[in-house]
């Protein structure tokens, strides 16, 4: 009964009666889910490829501009238009993928790993340990992320490294808390109680069983955080303390281009913003697909 159910139960479950034949719906859903996941993989790979191949893909220089063409609108020779220094925006978007992929992956990766470790231990062990860890996490989490990042960046100068650390610190408690919440739920579930009853080692229980079942919201949160990491960097740039010009990082480009919205030069902030959305979409679709696969 278990196997038969686990492979088809998700597909066969009609949330709302649709009136179509079940078989067609099944196939359609299978394809759709698979397609979206595949799309996510493709998009992510696309950005990785763009980042790696930037010097060969980009038509112009990302930092040398032609002042005579400054603020030019999109045209055939400059598909995404030009920024205030006369630099080609398409080129800068392409090069920007390097920085933002790096920021996204590093920040989320670090905080995910560290946060999950902390949270799972805390949630599983409970009691005083849990209370202490959670208080520290609360303190970190409550620290207004902006202020924390600003302070960090002001104390240590604003390099890519500092930025990544400042942003990571902010996300760690998010994961810790999520995992802990999931731990609370999972550890009282039948299988966990059963496993403990038969004497399963605790670590093994946590990492092999409880954790994978808690993964779903973690993955969701991670993919959300990827864009937050970049957006926080953009916000810091808006205030002037993010990545340093003339780095072609999307956040910097969005914040440099924002004052031009009111003067009608929409392309300066639109294209890096669109790139960010596309990269986020790729990660989210990928994550959702992974998340679905971990559902038992």
């Amino acid at each position: 009964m278990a196997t038969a159910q686990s492979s088809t139960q998700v597909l066969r479950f009609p949330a709302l009666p649709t009136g179509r034949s079940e078989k067609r719906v099944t196939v359609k859903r299978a394809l759709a889910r698979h397609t979206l996941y595949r799309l996510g993989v493709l998009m992510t790979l696309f950005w990785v490829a763009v980042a790696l191949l930037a010097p060969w893909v980009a038509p112009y220089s990302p930092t040398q501009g032609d002042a005579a063409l400054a603020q030019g609108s999109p045209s055939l020779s400059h598909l995404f238009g030009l920024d205030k220094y006369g630099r080609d925006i398409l080129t800068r978007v392409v090069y920007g993928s390097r920085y933002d992929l790096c920021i996204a992956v590093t920040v989320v990766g670090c905080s995910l790993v560290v946060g999950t470790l902390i949270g799972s231990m805390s949630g599983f062990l409970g009691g005083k340990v849990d209370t202490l860890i959670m208080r520290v996490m609360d303190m970190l989490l409550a620290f207004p992320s902006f202020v924390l990042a600003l302070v960090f960046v002001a104390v240590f100068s604003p390099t890519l490294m500092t930025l990544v650390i400042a942003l990571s610190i902010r996300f760690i408690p998010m994961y810790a808390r999520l995992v802990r919440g999931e731990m609370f739920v999972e550890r009282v579930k039948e299988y966990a109680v059963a496993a403990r009853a038969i004497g399963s080692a605790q670590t093994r229980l946590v990492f092999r069983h409880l954790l994978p079942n808690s993964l779903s919201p973690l993955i969701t949160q991670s993919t959300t955080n990827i864009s937050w990491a970049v957006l926080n960097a953009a916000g810091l740039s808006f205030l002037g303390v993010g990545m340093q010009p003339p780095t072609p990082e999307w956040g910097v480009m969005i914040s440099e281009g924002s004052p031009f919205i009111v003067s009608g030069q929409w392309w300066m902030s639109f294209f890096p913003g669109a790139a960010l959305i596309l990269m986020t979409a790729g990660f989210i679709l990928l994550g959702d697909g992974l998340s679905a696969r971990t559902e038992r």
Partner: protein
Amino acid sequence: MPDSPQGEVMEIISYVARRLATIIPTLLGASMVIFVLTMLIPGDPALMRLGNFATAEQLQSLHEEMGLTKPLYERYMLYLGGLLRGDMGRSWRTGNLVLDDLRARLPMSIELGVCSMLLAIAIGIPVGVWSAASKDSVIDYSGKAYGILGVAMPLFWGGLVLVYVFYFKLGIAPAPTGRIDMLVSPPTHITGSYLLDGLLTGDLEVVMSSAAHLVLPVITLAFVTGASIARMTYTSMRKVLASQFILVSHAYGVSPRAIVYKFALKNALMPVVTLIGLQVGFLIGGVVLVEVVFSLPGIGRYAVESLLVNDFAPVQGFVLLVLVVYLLVNLLVDLLYGVLNPQVHNG
């Protein structure tokens, strides 16, 4: 686990009391961390105040006046002593006590944060539930698209675009010049929230004007926050809908709608409630850029502007305030855990 209702209430009360008690050490720890961090920031606040025409002796006298010549630990002790008396120090940028400044600005931030969160919940949860329940349909995809768009959009960009379209081009929205129109006097101060105070004093004009000025910033914030709530709701619902418990209910003939709304939702909401708890603090203290674009005098802007000119007392006060708000909200969230899922033992 006590069986009697009185016993349960007692347990809840003692839980709350314990949690409240732990706020104090958290605050102490945080105050030390932020104090040390801000002191590490390079830059001379006295120079900031004096501007381009400073002379050396002016600088010296201002250093003394601002207490900058004392050693670090002494300044921390003074600060801590002040805190225990309820004195968060003085901002030289505004000339006021930090406590007064925060008190003046907090209601506005809460007004903005609460309205945005309410709208975000009103958008996010239904979108998430509906998408999860209508898997792989147009609704599902739209919900997903909204989730992606909302999460990836920069707040200040969104705000500027809304202002440009609805105020500048279409003239529908009021001028982003602050909480209320320039020629309308603010209401008598009761709570500090213009909406509430206007309602309480029956000043319709104030209510209309402040509501109008809140529309665009709230939409901006709710759009983004709602998206992450929608996404979390979606994922959580999907997981719950696929669980065995649901399947068994379905097999027993419980109607799909009942399944979705009565059973699945309650269980699926746990991580969503966590997320909301995390977000509320952000919406109150972290939306500096929205406050900048719409000229709203909130606590986030207050803290950041102070930080950027090396005026640190406000930053220290701000951090403590946001911490308190956050801890209280999350206490509520943890209590809600108990309500949503009675299986969970608190602590």
